[in-house]
């Protein structure tokens, strides 16, 4: 007899990389279920605030509900405080929202990227129940394990393990970081069945937010 499972994994990978004055947030656009592809052009990215972009992979029903929830809370914040939410503020809100459903979690693996109040790039990475950390770069989703080791080396960031604690933002230029993100997705697409079709890249810097698409392998 069919037993009802409230979750499914719709796959995909998300990445964010922070630089000195920019942030790159990228996610593939494949929506899968089991061994089927439901859509090749489905965005996992939500623009929550001016300089704050959320990319999530996992169960799409929960992801959309979570992104809607955060958008609504951001709007309330704007009305109450007469300013848009900063990225670190949204980071805390996301953590709290996730933990609120600690006993029936949002099956969403999130990566939040943007500029902090000083204009420096920031990336926050989460697990499904809200534990989070500010870091220089992160990958989440089905292809994350394939990407993280490459990012660890190729971004040439300071190691987070060495004291005194320093910022792990990458010293690379914006265009080099974008090229690396494209490369790392192309690699993950080769081996992860849930990653592919096309890649949506968002670049946030002082002049605003730029959006780019590139094709990935469709098999």
């Amino acid at each position, binding site marked *: 007899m069919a037993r009802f499972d*409230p979750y499914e994994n719709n796959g995909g990978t998300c990445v964010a990389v922070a630089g000195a004055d920019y942030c790159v947030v990228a996610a593939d656009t494949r929506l899968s279920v089991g061994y089927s592809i*439901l859509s090749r*052009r*489905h965005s996992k990215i939500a623009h929550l605030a001016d300089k704050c972009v959320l990319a999530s992979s996992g169960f799409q029903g929960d992801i959309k509900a979570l992104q809607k929830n955060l958008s609504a809370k951001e709007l309330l914040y704007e009305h109450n405080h007469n300013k848009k939410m900063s990225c670190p503020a949204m980071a805390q809100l996301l953590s709290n929202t996730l933990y609120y459903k600690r006993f029936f979690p949002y099956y969403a693996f999130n990566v939040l990227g943007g500029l902090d109040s000083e204009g420096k790039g920031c990336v926050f990475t989460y697990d499904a129940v809200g534990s989070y950390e500010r870091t220089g770069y992160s990958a989440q989703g089905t292809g994350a394990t394939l990407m993280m080791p490459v990012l660890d080396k190729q971004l040439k960031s300071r190691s987070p393990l060495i004291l005194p604690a320093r910022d792990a933002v990458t010293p690379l230029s914006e265009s080099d970081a974008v090229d690396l993100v494209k490369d790392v997705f192309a690699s993950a697409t080769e081996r992860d069945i849930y990653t592919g079709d096309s890649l949506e890249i968002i670049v946030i810097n002082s002049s605003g937010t730029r959006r780019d698409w590139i094709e990935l392998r469709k098999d």
Partner: protein
Amino acid sequence: MDGSHANAASAPAAAGGGEGTQRTLNPYVTGNSVIAMKYKDGVIMACDTGASYGSTLRYKSVERIKAVGKHSLIGGSGEFSDFQEILRYLDELTLSDHMWDDGNSLGPKEIHAYLTRVMYNRRNKFDPLWNSLVLGGVKKGPKGDEKYLGMVNMIGTHFEENHIATGFGNHMAVPILRGEWREDLTFEEAVKLIEKCLLVLLYRDRSSINKFQIAKITTEGSTIYPPYALKTNWGFSAFENPSQGAVGTW
């Protein structure tokens, strides 16, 4: 939050009619695949008219595509009683939309968003509407007539595409559509393409029957055509003498 998870654990004991909670555990009377695609003038949708009770073909003249408001069509596969419940929800929705009397009417995008919220919220209560719904329509927007086609399943996964198929159609019809669909299909071409998909399902899906309904929606409104059958071909020589060449068949 704690309550919903605790309910799930204790509900099997309670579901038999004990205290309180009753929720859907399995589907009973189920409808087959629904196939839909955008074409030049709007959206076309098709499905068979059967509803099965497990492996029994219980109902043979069931209409699983209905018009919603002025601008949309809904097709449902899965538990048929849940589909009827959804039609009741949509009746209430379109009625209150009409009662506003403000010159606006709900378009397919709005109805899809509404259904997504309904399905997701029922999933959160562990009492799902056991359906995969296809929502298609055309409505005038800022960029002219905008065609819309989307799907939502029983746990709230939803997306928008140029062509959609639920159930077995997802495995057998979608590959055909991905190869042959074009933006500018005429109605006749779209019907031919959809019949190709329906035929594959008829041959290969055990629960499919040879009685189909096609529906279309354009800016002029919706039309649900009367049911008809497709021509099938069983004249293969291997079928004529199946045991030829097989040693010791029974």
